[in-house]
């Protein structure tokens, strides 16, 4: 019910693509932070993954109008990032990666101030502040000075100030930075709620794929300024018919034998990875292992992980390209 409401909300508020870029390029002298990036992203919880320096923060800064693109075009909610910067900022909430809170004021005072800077009248700003601080899980401590907060509480305040004016889109840059595992899970839960229960589109930039996988509906993977992949998260995490055969020794011989029998196999340490396209594969594995007399540890169907796309960015993100010939 809530999720339906959320979708309706997205549908009402965002009739166009959330983000669109065309040949978006940003170079800092010799360094190309973004290189002819073409994107079209629909509303939802979008993960933006890439290693440090991949161009995530640059993309976010361009979307916010903090940095002008060198060439190409980008729009947020149908608004151009160069000509409609002010309009974009009215409907976008931003949580930077770095610390951004003055230590000598309370969370309530600070978030109210930021809500007013976003254009909310005084009373509305106070009400919204109380509400968002409750949503992010800050209660009595919200009157205390921010300087005395833990990292987790500070991250919550940062999220609250981004939510205070009820944006249509939230841009979160590494929101789990510096958090312990519990704090990280709570922050991810909060992001998920923001996207689903609150109906606010979220773009989460992170270099931790495991986190993105937990909360996002759509994934943008960028590397060295190039788009590696843009697809719904389900296509990244669906079970792929990969069978891992682990042997104590002789993985190389097993790989060679299976390859010679017409299977494309890849050795990964003590494992041999094979694409399962027919049940005959299991028989072939059993026979080959028996013929070679290898000490078999396990035969397991595996799920393809997000990390795989980074392991082999040049190829199809599958452990084994090809299959039974």
């Amino acid at each position, binding site marked *: 019910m*809530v999720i339906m409401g959320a979708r309706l*909300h997205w549908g009402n508020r965002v009739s166009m693509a959330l983000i669109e870029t065309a040949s978006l390029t940003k170079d800092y002298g010799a360094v190309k932070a973004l290189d002819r990036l073409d994107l079209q992203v629909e509303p939802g919880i979008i993960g933006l993954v890439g290693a440090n320096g991949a161009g995530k923060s640059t993309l976010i800064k361009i979307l*916010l109008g*903090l940095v002008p693109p060198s060439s190409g075009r980008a729009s947020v909610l149908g608004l151009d990032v160069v000509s409609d910067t*002010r309009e974009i*900022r*009215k409907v*976008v909430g*931003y949580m*930077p990666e*770095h*610390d*951004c*809170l*003055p*230590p*000598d*004021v309370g969370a309530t*005072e600070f978030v109210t*101030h*930021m809500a*007013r*800077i*976003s*254009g*909310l*009248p005084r009373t*509305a700003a106070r009400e*919204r502040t109380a*509400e968002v601080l*409750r*949503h992010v*899980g*800050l*209660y009595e401590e919200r009157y205390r*000075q921010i300087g005395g907060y833990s990292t*987790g509480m500070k991250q*919550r305040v940062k999220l609250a*100030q981004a939510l205070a*004016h*009820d944006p249509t889109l939230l841009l979160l840059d590494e929101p789990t930075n510096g958090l312990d595992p*519990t704090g990280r899970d*709570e922050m991810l*839960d*909060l992001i998920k*709620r923001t996207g689903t*229960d*609150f*109906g606010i589109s979220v773009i989460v930039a992170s270099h931790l794929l495991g986190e993105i996988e937990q909360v996002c509906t759509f994934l943008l993977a960028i590397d060295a300024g190039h788009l590696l992949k843009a697809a719904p998260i389900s296509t990244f995490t669906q079970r792929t018919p990969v069978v891992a055969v682990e042997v104590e020794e002789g993985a190389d011989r097993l790989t060679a034998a299976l390859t010679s029998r017409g299977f494309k196999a890849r050795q990964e340490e003590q494992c041999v990875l094979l694409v399962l396209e027919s049940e005959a594969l299991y028989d072939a594995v059993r026979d080959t292992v028996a013929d070679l007399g290898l000490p078999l540890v396990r035969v397991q169907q595996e799920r393809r992980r997000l990390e795989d796309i980074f392991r082999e960015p040049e190829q199809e993100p599958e452990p084994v390209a090809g299959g039974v010939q």
Partner: protein
Amino acid sequence: MSAGNRLSASSPSGSIFDLGYRHYAGKRHGRWYAAWSLYVESLRGVWGFGRPMSAKAAPFILAGLYSFFAFLQLAFSSTLANEISSGQQVQLFAYDSYFTQFGFLLILFCVAQAPEVVCRDQRYQVLSLYFTRAMGRADYALARLASLATALFLALIVPMIALFVGDVLMKPDTISAIGVELPKALPAIPADILIAASMASISLALSSYSPRRAYSAIGLIAYFLLMEAVPAIIYAVAQQGGWTSADKLVLLTPITSLSGATDWFFGKALGADYPATLGADTYVVACIASVAVFSAILLFRYRRMAA
């Protein structure tokens, strides 16, 4: 942990206490409202409101000291009135010379509070939150400038009001005294506006170049001391050497120029300390030019600053 409980309470099973997220459909103001909000917050911040008690100490002590002598005169106005009526010569504080006498306290006010206005946001990287909202960089810089100028104006005008009330109370006929004193006191308003604008623009432009409070404060002290002393020394030496155009250098001094400009507003002749070659109006022009130059430096600084 309460936060954890809260989060689990928001799971689909729900809780009757969870009102859910409500969207905001009310009015949203634009950039002018944002700038006004920043101005108000900043003005409160200069005086330490909304901050710990320790933040109120410096501004209130310094502004209080600046006003102290005017209030002293007000407190003893009846005694002074008796002495004046008995024909004694009493040296009173006057509207036109008060700043010249006690202006150094306001320099200390700027040294203490200007870094508070602009360094904090740089040091704690709050600027990226402002610059990603519907507020321009120029709006930000000007709102900050206006807030410090207003705070200085308040500090300047309070002793003027105290002097005015004291002077009125010293006269036997209060109503006619207001009529006599008001025209004498009113030039304090434009003069104080100019002083506030000039000191605020200098202090903020210089402070904005360092995120560290201490460095900004040292820079401000150095600027005010050196710019007061060096042109005066060069002028004195040049007089001996017969270099006539050295008198223009006196226009670079921040406080002497403001004192000269104040004299122009009150229609008072410049004292013997000032170069005889320059009229009081020159100092007004010099002060307005300094406001323009330092405001431009401040705007330039924020235009280039990375968020």
